[in-house]
């Protein structure tokens, strides 16, 4: 009976198209949100590194604000709250905006920490040969910073990928939502179990890698 309920293959076959669409939408969401988050986060970190103390304070306020808000609250605000201003973004765009705002704050922190960890001598060498601060950071500091922060970047990418599932709450037909809808069709938790297994299989390697990289840093 357990197997029938939780691993009902027929249920999967029946709801397969629905689940596939959901999976593809999640994939699409990840493909948009992760690069955008990294790009925005890097720009913010660059602004931090090149600006004066006012800019730096502004950075911290911005980043910590988005780190203090649950992403779901942000999503709900954008999806249900913005239409009152006439801004009807739709569930996909709302999801992208919320996830990018949230994700980029964490990415910005990671890149910022990476930049700050590069020895001052590298800046000296760049500036002493006539490079502007911008040229120095782009050609000398940032490449080195990125090599050092691969672990945390991957870790945050994993978290951001998992976070896409919250979009099910605003009825975006991504993977989790597809599972819930499928479940209501077949009165059977198998779709949920199936989706969980797919998440597990696909994200396990990344989670393993991130764990290993984190431990590598701690034991140095």
């Amino acid at each position: 009976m357990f197997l029938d309920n939780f691993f009902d293959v027929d249920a999967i076959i029946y709801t397969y198209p629905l689940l596939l669409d959901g999976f593809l939408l999640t994939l699409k969401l990840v493909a948009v949100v992760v690069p955008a988050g990294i790009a925005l986060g890097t720009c913010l970190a660059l602004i931090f590194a090149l600006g004066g103390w006012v800019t730096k304070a502004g950075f911290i306020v911005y980043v910590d604000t988005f780190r203090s808000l649950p992403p779901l609250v942000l999503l709900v605000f954008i999806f249900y709250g913005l239409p009152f201003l006439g801004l009807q973004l739709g569930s996909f765009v709302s999801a992208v905006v919320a996830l990018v705002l949230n994700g980029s704050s964490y990415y910005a922190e990671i890149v910022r920490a990476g930049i700050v960890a590069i020895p001052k001598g590298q800046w000296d060498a760049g500036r002493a040969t006539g490079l502007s601060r911008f040229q120095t950071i782009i050609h000398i500091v940032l490449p080195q910073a990125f090599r050092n922060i691969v672990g945390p970047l991957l870790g945050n990418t994993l978290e951001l990928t998992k976070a896409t599932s919250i979009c099910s709450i605003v009825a975006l037909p991504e993977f989790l939502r597809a599972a819930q809808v499928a479940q209501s069709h077949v009165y059977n938790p198998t779709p949920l179990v199936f989706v969980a297994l797919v998440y597990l299989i696909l994200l396990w390697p990344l989670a393993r890698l991130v764990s290993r990289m984190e431990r590598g840093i701690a034991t140095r």
Partner: protein
Amino acid sequence: MTSAPILEIADLRKSFGKEEVLKGVNLTVQRGEVVVLLGSSGSGKSTFLRCINRLEEPTSGTISLNGVPVTSSDANLHDLRKQIGMVFQSFNLYPHLTALKNITLALRLSLGQSRKVAEEQATRMLSQVGLAEKARSYPSELSGGQQQRVAIARALALEPQVMLFDEPTSALDPELVGSVLEVIRLLRQSNMTMVIVTHELGFAREAADRIVMMDKGEVVEEGAPEQLFTAPRHQRTREFLKHFTGR
């Protein structure tokens, strides 16, 4: 020597917060002259050197390069740094670039040279310091002495008028020091104007045209090497030399 001095520094002061590290330093350097700055740590000699190319901003005072003041706020930092080369104690080579690319980076970005021209210049510079075959090596593959020579080549590549050396051999194992000093000697022979902060007293005595002794942010004595080493006038100079030479 009838030409005007290449570098004129007048009443240079630098404070970090409340602490005054440079208390009115004056220095005039002639074209082709080699000036060595001596002093114990905390004397301000490194800070002074870094003020010359404005890696540190002086709190007050003037610096003129070829008669043109470079300390005013609208002075072109970019141009200044093309004319003054700097070599650091910890080399500061870019670890993610080959020796060649370490040199071509500034040539392309700062001087706007094309890749081909920059690479030719870089190769020439590497030959000059005896490391032509290491062009494609990364800093991690080079010994300390080799890295510092690449750093010198990097500074020379922009064809500066003045070269600044901030304790160029202090971070090197003793057996590697010689190769770097040799390069500096060659530069001296080609009449490069240099200001060198160093602890290598033997080298200072042999290579310097003039020695400037600093203590607590001020110049306490300056003069020709022979005069300073054999008959130092100021008490601080005597103490410093005694400590190093055991005389």
